[in-house]
């Protein structure tokens, strides 16, 4: 069922975003498709190797990432969601007064404790002592 919108101006205000999105996707996709159509395609084994600025590639491009990336991604995600919660608060706390401001600070304080905890536990250190000792 197509949606019905009460205000048409709402959609027009978003049409710029849509246009931007279409242009961004179209720029990349259009380029790729255009060159795919007009370029000659003569595949040799040499051409299929990974391009490393002229060097002979060693091994595949698929290497196993350091597991530490994952810790950072997880911590990032938690604070990403925190940002989502704080955005609406930041928009309105001025009009709602000092108590609303303190309520937001409480929210931040709880997560600051979490940050202090992961920092003290060394979860945010890229190189940890045990990594240097073990091979």
């Amino acid at each position: 069922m197509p949606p019905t919108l009460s205000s048409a101006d709402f959609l027009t205000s978003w049409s710029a975003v849509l246009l931007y999105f279409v242009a961004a996707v179209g720029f990349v996709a259009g380029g790729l498709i255009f060159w795919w159509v007009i370029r000659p395609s003569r595949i040799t084994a040499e051409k299929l190797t990974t391009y490393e600025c002229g060097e002979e590639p060693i091994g595949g491009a698929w290497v196993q990432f350091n597991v530490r990336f994952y810790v950072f991604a997880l911590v990032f995600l938690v604070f990403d969601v925190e940002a989502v919660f704080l955005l609406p608060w930041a928009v309105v706390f001025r009009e709602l007064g000092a108590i609303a401001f303190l309520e937001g600070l409480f929210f931040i304080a709880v997560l600051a404790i979490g940050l202090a905890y992961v920092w003290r536990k060394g979860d945010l250190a890229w190189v940890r002592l045990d990594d240097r000792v073990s091979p």
Partner: protein
Amino acid sequence: MTASAVVFWVLTLIVLASAAVVVLSRSLINSAFALLATFSGVAGFYVLLGADFLAAVQFLVYVGGILILLVFGVMLTHRIQDLDLRAEARQLVPGLFVAAGVFILLAAVATRTPWAIGAGRLPSATTAEIGRAFLGKYLLPFEAASILLLVALIGAALIVRKREDA
């Protein structure tokens, strides 16, 4: 057809097609990238429904966060390119029946029910409204969410961390 209907059907096409790639693709990395289109399409739905803040959240958290985590998860896995990740289509027919049944049930209920729809116009920007709800009626769950995030942070750090000798 109105402009919003065109947008709706285009988004539907994007979401369904990319979701099919997510499920059917053999390569995990292709699935992950197809999920990008699915998440973005859903964000488009939110815009169409007038939930602009939710659309931003969808981009910020799902496209910018969860998807990155997913791709990291793929990259971290040892010898990922050797794996054949097809989901086996065991019990395909019963599965299809269950899925179709759930779909019909939900669709029938959703289309036939007179929903309790609030009165008045859509707010032109929902962020401030959500902020007022966070600091007013839903203050308690808002503050409790900080505890939830803290617990998630501790739990994640604890599970990923190497064993300590303490």
